[in-house]
Structure formats: structure tokens, C-alpha cells
């Protein structure tokens, strides 16, 4: 995993078949980056379904959720429609896993992303990260605590 405190490396990936999203476009918001192994797989499904319910909680902290896997933009499109996800899934498809490698969460053995979370603040700095065993859904308590800590700190400093 990349260290806490550095600027999150920028990237640009397909968010829909005809649109690309660049991380730097999201300055002024916090970004929760979710690297996950595969669309349609049981644990990823539970994990993303849970985060999908949390829009209100993430919005309170001015945070945007983004999923990333090596699946194609067409798989993402179908997965989003089927599961009614309200956040983008980015396709780290070609060159395969390039962004996951950049964030040190690529599993070369399986050819998939590891299950990892990065929390990036409004200035683009990595503030928190977590890697979960591939078979374990990390839930959302860690993300929520990290978001609260960042915002509380901000209040103290003002």
C-alpha cells in the first residue's frame, strides 16, 4: 500500500463506456477509493451493496465513493445497472491493473485488484488506507471513523 500523507497518484479511467474520470477532477471533495477483485463475485457484491446504502453518510463528509477493478467497462455497466449502484466503477482494464499497481494493490497471481481502501482528502492527500484479506468484507465502520477523524481535526485546527 502507498504511505499515508503523500499525494494520491492521478489516473484517468473509463467510468462509463464513453466517459473517463480523472482523479484530479475530484479535488475539493474527499474520495473513497475501493479497489476490489471482481464484479459479480459474492464478497465484492456484499461490500459494494453496503457502500451503496451509505451515500447519505459519505455526503455528510463531502466524500465521493469510487470503485475500481480490472473488469471491463461493459461488465461494470451491467453490474451497476443490475445492482442499482449510485457511484461509479472504474475500469482498470488496459493496460490491465495499471492503476492498481500504481497504488500497490495489484495481485499478479490472480490478475485482480486486492481488496483495499484508500481515503483521499480535499487536497488530494492520502489520509487513511486499509487492506482486507480477499475473502473478508471490511464493512464501512473503518471508513466512517476515518472520515470523522479528518473532519474533527479540521474543526480543531480552524
Amino acid at each position: 500500500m502507498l504511505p499515508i500523507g503523500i499525494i494520491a497518484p492521478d489516473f484517468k479511467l473509463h467510468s462509463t463506456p464513453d466517459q473517463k474520470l480523472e482523479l484530479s477532477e475530484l479535488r475539493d471533495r474527499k474520495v473513497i477509493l475501493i479497489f476490489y477483485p471482481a464484479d459479480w463475485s459474492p464478497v465484492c457484491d456484499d461490500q459494494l451493496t453496503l457502500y451503496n446504502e451509505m451515500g447519505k453518510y459519505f455526503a455528510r463528509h463531502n466524500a465521493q465513493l469510487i470503485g475500481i477493478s480490472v473488469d471491463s467497462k461493459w461488465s461494470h455497466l451491467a453490474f451497476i445497472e443490475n445492482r442499482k449502484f449510485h457511484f461509479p466503477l472504474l475500469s482498470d482494464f488496459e493496460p490491465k491493473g495499471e492503476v492498481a499497481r500504481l497504488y500497490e494493490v495489484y495481485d499478479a497471481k490472480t490478475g485482480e485488484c486486492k481488496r483495499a481502501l484508500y481515503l483521499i482528502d480535499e487536497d488530494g492527500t492520502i489520509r487513511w488506507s486499509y487492506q482486507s484479506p480477499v475473502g473478508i468484507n471490511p464493512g464501512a465502520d473503518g471508513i466512517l471513523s476515518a472520515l470523522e477523524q479528518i473532519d474533527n481535526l479540521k474543526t480543531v485546527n480552524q
Partner: protein
Amino acid sequence: MNALIPAVNSKDHIAGKPGALIELVEYGDYECPYCGRAYPIVKYIQQNLGNDIKFVFRNFPLSKIHPHAFSAAVATEAASQQNRFWEMHDIIFENQKTLDPDDILLFARSVGLDPARFKNDIEQKALTEKVEMDFESGIRSGVNRTPTFFINGEKFEGDWTDYHLLEYLKSILARVPSL
């Protein structure tokens, strides 16, 4: 190990004796098929363990994939206003494929609720907030799917299907020194 936050308290729906040795908490979604499968399993456990168990149900509706889950949860809270929480909880799980507003109203009548009061109560903001509070407590407690169980305040990561949960609870009871 994730701990239950907050601990079971007076706002919870509790079935069983307060002093029971085992406190089983379920975070569940009324439209979730896995929770539907867990429902008779929990009933069987309650029958089997009798006074040794108290059971608590907290709402964890996954509304984006289960469009009826939230309103069903509110309906049980409204039933609770007329002291029929568990009756409503049961009838909803027993009919979880038909949870449209008309169905819910039918359930309300058949468990003996005053329909006018029920209709009024399901519009109350306080009940919506109760369901949301349950959901948020689940997030903080590390709930990551439904159902998620907590046993005596700690998240249960094992297999709850078939007789596995009952056997596990029995093994806890077996370790309790007899008084």
C-alpha cells in the same frame, strides 16, 4: 473483533428474559432472502434455548436493492407503538415476497393493530429515524451484510445456517459454570 455499538438498550426490541445468559442480536432486512432463511432458524433457537436466550432485532434495510425493506421496517416500528412488534416482525418475514403498502396494511389488520392509528404512525418521522439509527449503529458495529449476528456483544463470524448457530450457542452455554 467488532463489538456491538451501542449495547442493547431500552430502545431495542427484546424477546426473552432480561437476565438470559445469551444475548443474540440480529441486524436484518425484511426483504433480504437470507434473513428470510434465518427467520425460522432463530425461532427454532429461541424454542430450544428457552430462558437462556434473549433475542434482539435491529433494522438494517438495504434500500437500494430491496425497495420494500425500509417501509417494512417502519411498519414493525409502528406495530411496536401498539405492542405488536414481534407479531408484525413475524408476519412480514413469513410473507417477505409481498411487501407492497396494501400487503403491509393487511398484515397490520391481521395482527390486530388499529389500522387508523397504524396508518398515522407509519408517517411519523420518529419511526423513520429509529430505523435509520438502527442502520447507523449497524455500520458502526461492522455489519457488512444481512443478516449479521452479535452474540453477547461480539460479532459472530461463523456459519449461522442449519443447526450451526444453535450448536455454537449451546457450546457457549456448556462453558458457563452451573450456579
